[in-house]
């Protein structure tokens, strides 16, 4: 059913899917998952709330409260599915778009906004959440995740790392080096590529001429393509990959086949480079609608539940907005903070000089 969506490349030979766009559960020989109604409701709640936070952030940007926002619209299932597969001990390395994963890791959404509002470059403690800071330089975090996984190996710990990156990122040298290192050291790392079909204005065929999940085979580890709009499948596939990584079976590449429903960021104008029909096609595969349909059909939730979630989402949106506006601007002298951990004479001198300079204005 998603054959048409495989831009340019051949039909996806084995898209792992557990829930159709129409909300039908389907079986897959290698991947299955047994979810309690409670768990399904939890996933639905996650999906809905992160979409709401995302919408609020877009609005905040439109109103000038954020300098920029990179929307996850359309990619909720890929992020919630994979994010909920992680154990507390696992470590996640995001790009700049993993707001859904951040949610799963317990990062307060307001903390995501700091970077986009320009009050900091990253506002949470990675160790507290086992969720690394957002990385903007495309692909560079993949090596960090592999190094981290090599550390897990050395600690003999029961954990894995997972690293997120886009379809465009697969062209960077760093990402391919990360594949090599992970493979050579058999590191417990899962490569989670959200193929949202676009790298800003460039369609997938500018990065590869075969399906991305097959890249892994050239490096000697398995790659799979999962329906990135199917939260059940994303959860099942990632859970298995992480379990294998933790048990010493090495790395795995997961290509979550999905679609960037919005602009690349709020600065972008996708009408310049892509046709509306494409978007319409993908709307039919919405990651949230299918869960909702499934839940209705299987009486996992009633209208009251959905209403309650919507209300919670609205409340969350309001709360995020309020606290975003309250985010304090940093003090000018903060420019010199945290550049070095240990005392550094140049920083001290420049800070002092700048303080004197600023005092000159107050006088």
């Amino acid at each position, binding site marked *: 059913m998603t054959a048409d969506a495989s831009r340019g490349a051949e039909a996806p030979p084995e898209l792992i899917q557990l829930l159709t766009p129409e909300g039908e559960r389907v079986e897959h020989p290698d991947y299955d998952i047994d979810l309690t109604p409670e768990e399904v409701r939890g996933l639905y709640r996650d999906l809905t709330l992160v979409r709401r936070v995302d919408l609020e952030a877009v609005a905040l940007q439109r109103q000038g409260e954020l300098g920029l926002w990179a929307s996850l619209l359309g990619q909720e299932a890929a992020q919630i599915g994979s994010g909920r597969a992680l154990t507390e001990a696992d470590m996640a390395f995001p790009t700049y778009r993993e707001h859904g994963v951040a949610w799963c890791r317990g990062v307060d959404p307001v903390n995501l906004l700091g970077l986009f509002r320009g009050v900091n470059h990253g506002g949470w403690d990675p160790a507290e959440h086992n969720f690394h800071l957002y990385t903007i330089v495309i692909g560079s975090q993949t090596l960090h995740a592999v190094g981290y996984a090599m550390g897990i190996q050395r600690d003999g710990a029961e954990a894995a790392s997972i690293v997120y990156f886009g379809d465009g990122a697969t062209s960077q*040298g760093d990402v391919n080096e990360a594949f090599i290192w992970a493979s050579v050291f058999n590191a417990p790392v899962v490569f989670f590529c959200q193929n949202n079909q676009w790298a800003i*204005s460039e369609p997938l065929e500018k990065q590869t001429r075969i399906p991305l999940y097959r890249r892994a085979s050239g490096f000697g580890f398995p790659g799979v393509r999962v329906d990135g709009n199917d939260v059940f499948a994303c959860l099942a596939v990632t859970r298995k990959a992480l379990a294998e990584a933790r048990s010493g079976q090495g790395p795995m590449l997961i290509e979550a086949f999905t679609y960037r429903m919005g602009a690349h960021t709020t600065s972008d104008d996708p009408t310049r480079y892509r046709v509306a029909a494409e978007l319409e096609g993908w709307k039919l595969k919405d990651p949230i609608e299918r869960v909702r349909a499934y839940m209705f059909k299987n009486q996992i939730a009633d209208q009251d539940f959905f209403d309650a979630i919507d209300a919670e989402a609205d409340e969350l949106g309001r709360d995020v907005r309020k606290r975003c506006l309250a985010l304090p601007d940093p003090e000018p002298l903060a420019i010199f903070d945290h550049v070095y951990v240990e005392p550094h004479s140049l920083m001290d001198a420049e800070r002092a000089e700048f303080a004197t300079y600023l005092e000159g204005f107050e006088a």
Partner: protein
Amino acid sequence: MTILTLAKALNEGMRKAMEDDSKVLVMGEDVGKLGGVFRVTDGLQKDFGEQRVIDTPLAESGIIGTAIGLALRGYRPVCEIQFDGFVFPAADQIITQLAKMPLRSLGKLRLPVVVRIPCGGGIGAVEHHSESPEAYFTHTAGLRVVACSNPVDGYAMIQQAIRCEDPVVFFEPKRRYWEKAEVDVDSSDWTPFDEAKVVRQGTDATLLAYGPMVKTCLEAAKASEDDGRSLEVVDLRSLNPLDVSKVTESVRRTGRCIVVHEAPVYNGFGAEIAARVTEECFYNLQSPVLRVGGPSTPYPPSRLEDHYLPDLDRVLHAVDRAFAF
């Protein structure tokens, strides 16, 4: 005469170069249909086709490395690095290959490659989108490094860079992309692009700047008038080579020199200027060459950038200091 923004002047300059020479190619991320994130290559793919305006894979090392190969085959690639902070994956190709290959070949190979880098801050952007990495390249022998500051120069200098037989790193001050000026697009009677320009004459001190800071210095010079100070402003335009004679001529006359850039001061390009000007004008200097630049820290979050970036006040403060010596 046509009124053009800097972005459009660069666009027209590239268009002209592509019309004049079918070997000129444009390549980079999103330079095609999108016309680049700043629209500097807008419309070029439509008019010159995908063979000449190439949307590349997302890999800066690949952009420069394949541009070198294309140049070896006789092409003249104009590469766009999407933002200043993303040039570093290409550092190896630029520093060990692009800069050194002509020498390696004892002059048998030429690499007329232009590396366009939108640079600098002041646009409220996130990390890596506001940097000024010029010093990494001025220190790299084999490269020419230039920076344009206005539409007139933008139109001319991009064409000069494309025609140059040496590799050129070409800085474009992104916060000036939307500034306008009258450009004579039919003339090609241009100042050589390795010459500085005195953009305002003065007698009491010389302000040296390039790229985004030229405008800031002009404003400072104007503001200084009220204090009865006559400041000369020199737009360096070329950072490697530096137009030493024009610079020293000015400083000898004024006796004071302040160099202004956005990049961190520590070992920034201002250091080279200060060292060189001092050596050449030792007995003419009433005060040491002063440097105004970013703090020696990474570029801060954008809510702090007004404090980070040199502005009118910071320049005038340095002028005061120079006079107080």
